[in-house]
């Protein structure tokens, strides 16, 4: 419940960002006439950054960027993970082994360094960041889905369908897919927080778009401008707390979904 409320709040922030702050406020020029690193006041609810931009605007628009990257990356990761997981689980023989090897490989590759390399080579726009994160984030989910498919294959009702004369197509469409769908959904809601954290890490390391800043990028600015030693809390606290909040929101919702879909976990 808390998760859902928080989630709604952040989605609202992302959607309403243009209402509260104009996109142009994100440009460097927007802060030219404003005081730099100014504490919050009636005009700048969350103060200004080192080049005079309105931190409130940055945080509102940050919700948009962070959510966009987080969700798009999740879609990419879920699609890759589900397809590979389904194939690895349903196929037999060498196809399954190759899939498993690819999965193992991506599972042990250190994720952040890999994403850094990719972002360095491919570019830094939000969409590319999302593709990079999604493209490297799917291995765990694919492993889970494979395990579930393997277990579904052994279920009595799959054997019953086979004994009734069902084709592979019938079994996949009628029994395997409906069986893994809830897992895919629950898994997706747990990938979102991971992707958002990953994005904020990459942005913090300088791999983000300066003028459509995510929360991680805002934190990078705070770090680089010396806001920490200057006690400019309004600059770094709000984006940081937002990241924590959104990660918690998706984690809580994901856990709740998992509990709904997997009755075995019911009394956790």
């Amino acid at each position, binding site marked *: 419940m808390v998760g859902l409320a928080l989630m709604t709040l952040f989605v609202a922030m992302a959607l309403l960002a243009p209402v509260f702050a104009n996109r142009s406020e994100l440009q460097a020029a927007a802060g030219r006439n404003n005081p730099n690193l100014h504490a919050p006041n009636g005009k700048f609810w969350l103060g200004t950054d080192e080049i005079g931009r309105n931190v409130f605007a940055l945080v509102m628009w940050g919700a948009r960027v962070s959510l966009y990257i987080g969700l798009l990356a999740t879609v990419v990761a879920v699609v890759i993970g589900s397809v590979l997981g389904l194939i690895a689980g349903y196929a037999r023989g060498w196809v399954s082994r190759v899939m498993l090897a690819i999965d193992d490989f991506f599972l042990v590759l250190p994720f952040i360094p890999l994403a850094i390399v990719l972002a360095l080579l491919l570019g830094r726009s939000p969409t590319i960041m999302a593709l990079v994160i999604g493209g490297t984030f799917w291995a765990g989910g694919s492993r889970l889905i494979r395990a579930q498919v393997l277990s579904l294959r052994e*279920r009595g*009702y799959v*054997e*019953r369908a*086979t*004994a*009734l*004369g069902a084709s592979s197509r019938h079994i996949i469409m009628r029994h395997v897919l409906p069986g893994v769908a809830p897992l895919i959904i629950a898994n997706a809601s747990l990938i979102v927080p991971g992707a958002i954290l990953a994005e904020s890490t990459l942005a913090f390391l300088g791999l983000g778009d300066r003028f459509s800043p995510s929360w991680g990028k805002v934190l990078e600015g705070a770090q680089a401008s010396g806001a920490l030693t200057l006690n400019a809390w309004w600059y770094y606290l709000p984006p940081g707390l937002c990241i924590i909040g959104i990660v918690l929101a998706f984690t809580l919702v994901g856990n709740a979904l998992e509990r709904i879909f997997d009755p075995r976990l019911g009394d956790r």
Partner: protein
Amino acid sequence: MSEVVSPPLLEVAGAKVTYEARRRGGLPVRAVDGVDLTVQRGEVLALVGESGCGKTTLARAVLGLQPLSGGSINFAGSSLPRSKSGLRAYRRKAQLVFQDPTGSINPRQSIYEIVAEGLRIHRERADEEARVAAALSICGLRPPEQFFLRFPHELSGGQRQRVVIAGAMVLEPSLLVADEPVSSLDASVRGEILQLLLGLSRDRGMTILVVTHDLGLAWNIADRVAVMYLGRIVEVGTTEQILAAPQHPYTKALLSVVPEHDKMEQQILTGEAPDPTHIPTGCRFHPRCPVYQSGEAERLGIAHACTGVDPVLTNSVACHLANR
């Protein structure tokens, strides 16, 4: 007698199923090792034996779920099809009822969908609802309409098994293979399901092959009994023959340990269920055979045959002593 003897519905001849061991370097598992068996139209045949004797593998082979590595299976006079489409058509006629009804139905499907699944797989859309209703009502789920939209978890174990049987009956098969159909059910429900199976055979002429370790079940519903040991049928005959006057020492031992059967002295065989990767030479039962072990076989001068000659099924029993 002028009655024409109809050919058997199912004829298994020299059937073998061998598969590779899970572990590398392991010996091949000879799960079914040369089985001859016929099932007549309309009869209930019980295939009994300990776990690991190959009875379930044989049942799966009969349904075309497990390819044979040797021998043949004939159904209604022609051998089992090997092609995908041939097998699909065959599976319309031979249906399986499982041990665990809860696991064998998809918890996400309604009872209607579960029962109709066979019709949908074989694209028989006509009168679907009427046929589903008829199958449910044959299986004692009445009025059938009341069950259409319910889900498996709302039903009791016995009702679920009825749904599984209805799902098989909806295709109007000529053979029903039931693998331990009541062993996971509560005692008080067991009789009801057995009554249902017996009724299908008596009222509708259904041929039923029931796989079980439970001799009481055979006594309750079977016309004939086949006893299986280590991949081979060691004794076969009418239920009265086998259960009242067993010939094979293995059948005798099996019967003697049925609780409440206090007419016989218990002959508890030592050791665990035998291992199908190491089938003994000669009579495969001799290492556990009370007759051989007590030295009686020696006295009768058949011990060398027990260790050296694989007995064949003659006069319904495969034993050197009985066939002496």
